[in-house]
């Protein structure tokens, strides 16, 4: 298999011909569909988001993932994290990957502080450990003034800060960061990137999905370009990012 390239290095994640197919129910009738109550409804649609991706990640690599919106990046990451098991093919990993995505609050009605504690417990912290770490997590997030407010009142950026701080407080063998830094401000992004480089030094494997090419080139040792559910390119950060940007600009001028 050509996915196995450095036979002497130790693999951490093996992605073997992964397909992700979503079955979406309840899309209802098409907006411009004819007529009458008896017209056949399109009740279920299949979306083939990832179409047979294979690659191997070795110890100490930080993988950047680029690709346009809807290219299947997030679906692939969720398959790697085991949150949405692949429809066909399989992902193998050394330890349980942790995923950090954009999106809603963990538990919207609870305060930031309680989200820290529950998030920590769900990640496998002992009760005492997480209580001891709470202060450090709050400090890292820079949200001290808002920590007793319910998480539903947080902005996207604040929510992302908090979730990154929770996830980054623990040593992970494999951490997947899915555009979670995109909504944060520049200052926090730099702090988070520094933290990611630190994790890599501690032999952790990090996947970073981002549309910020500078961020990817600053932190990653290898970049994968996913387009229309397929792996288009896999190589040096500079090379892949330049090819990706060139393609995007070509799309603009057409």
């Amino acid at each position, binding site marked *: 298999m050509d996915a196995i390239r450095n036979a002497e290095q130790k693999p951490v994640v093996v992605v*073997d011909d992964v397909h992700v197919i979503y079955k979406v129910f309840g899309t209802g009738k098409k907006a411009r569909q004819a007529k009458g109550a008896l017209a056949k409804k399109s009740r279920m649609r299949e979306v083939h988001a990832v179409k047979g991706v294979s690659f191997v990640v070795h110890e100490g690599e930080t993988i950047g993932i680029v690709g346009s919106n809807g290219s299947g990046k997030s679906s692939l990451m969720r398959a790697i994290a085991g949150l*949405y098991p692949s429809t066909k093919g399989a992902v193998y990993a050394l330890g349980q990957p942790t995923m950090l995505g954009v999106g809603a609050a*963990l538990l919207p009605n609870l305060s930031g502080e309680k989200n820290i504690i529950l998030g920590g417990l769900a990640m496998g912290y002992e009760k005492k450990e997480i209580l001891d770490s709470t202060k450090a997590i709050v400090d890292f997030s820079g949200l001290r003034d808002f920590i007793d407010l319910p998480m539903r009142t947080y902005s996207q950026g604040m929510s992302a800060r908090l979730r990154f701080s929770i996830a980054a407080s623990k040593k992970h063998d494999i951490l997947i960061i899915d555009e979670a830094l995109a909504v944060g401000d520049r200052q926090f992004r730099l702090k988070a990137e520094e933290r990611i480089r630190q994790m890599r030094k501690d032999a952790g494997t990090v996947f970073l999905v981002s549309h910020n090419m500078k961020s990817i080139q600053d932190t990653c040792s290898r970049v994968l370009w996913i387009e229309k559910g397929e792996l288009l390119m896999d190589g040096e950060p500079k090379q892949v990012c330049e090819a990706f940007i060139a393609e995007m600009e070509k799309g603009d001028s057409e």
Partner: protein
Amino acid sequence: MNLADYAHSHGLKQVGVRPKFIEYLGQVWQRRDFALTMSLYASEAQNARTRLGRWWLVLLPSLQALAYGLVFGLILGDLRPANFIPFLITGVFLFSFFSGSFSAGAKAITSNGGLLRTLSFPRILLPLAAVIREFINFLPQLALLPLVMVAFGQDITFDWLYLIPIALLMFLFSTGLAMISARLTVQVKDLGKLVPFITRLMFYSSGIFFEIDRIFAGYPELLAIAMLNPVYDFISLARGALVNDMHMTPFLWVVSSLWSVGIFLFGVFYFWRAEARYGRD
């Protein structure tokens, strides 16, 4: 060498697959603090959003008992059970715990998308936390029951202590029930709509405001079935412990214990079988 063999030869494990049952229980035990803490926080958060807060936990079932008491007390007339108020309040309070657990279980997975999409942990912790939360909310009602008994002229006896094993059996039973409803509503969304209907049906068939043996006296087959209804059995036990002239029978203890252990074990196993499917929408 293919990729799967290559991965296995380096000790990598497939992600997103259901762990073995024993392993799964181990993970659940390891993260038990999560379920406990989450239920405490959720209970606090629920009660923090209204002015009367915790008082609603006893106010709401009391108001319900009052409404049913007025309506059915009049309709039933002479068929009204003796010691009607203690009889009714015991039934309504206990039933509110069952129905609360059932509907909380049904929502445990479907309403926690944010958590499920972000973190991987044994999903069974969510319905478990939901039932613990319902149990915490049930405790004030449990404490109020003896006071109601005294206020309505019931004798103070050591039998009241039987409420403790009864509550524990009810907890086991409700946990199993919540696991089952949690999985069912994920697989068949439509069932979520039926939850209030099923709850209503259980309410009217469990003898909350009437004596099943008197109403069904002319239909021995129906009576036999009604006597096996676990909700009825739990409520009858509690009435036997609290209300004058009502008795806990060995039959009730045996049937309710079998239901509790059976539904609990089945529920945990049934929920685990679909572990890899939760949070996939």
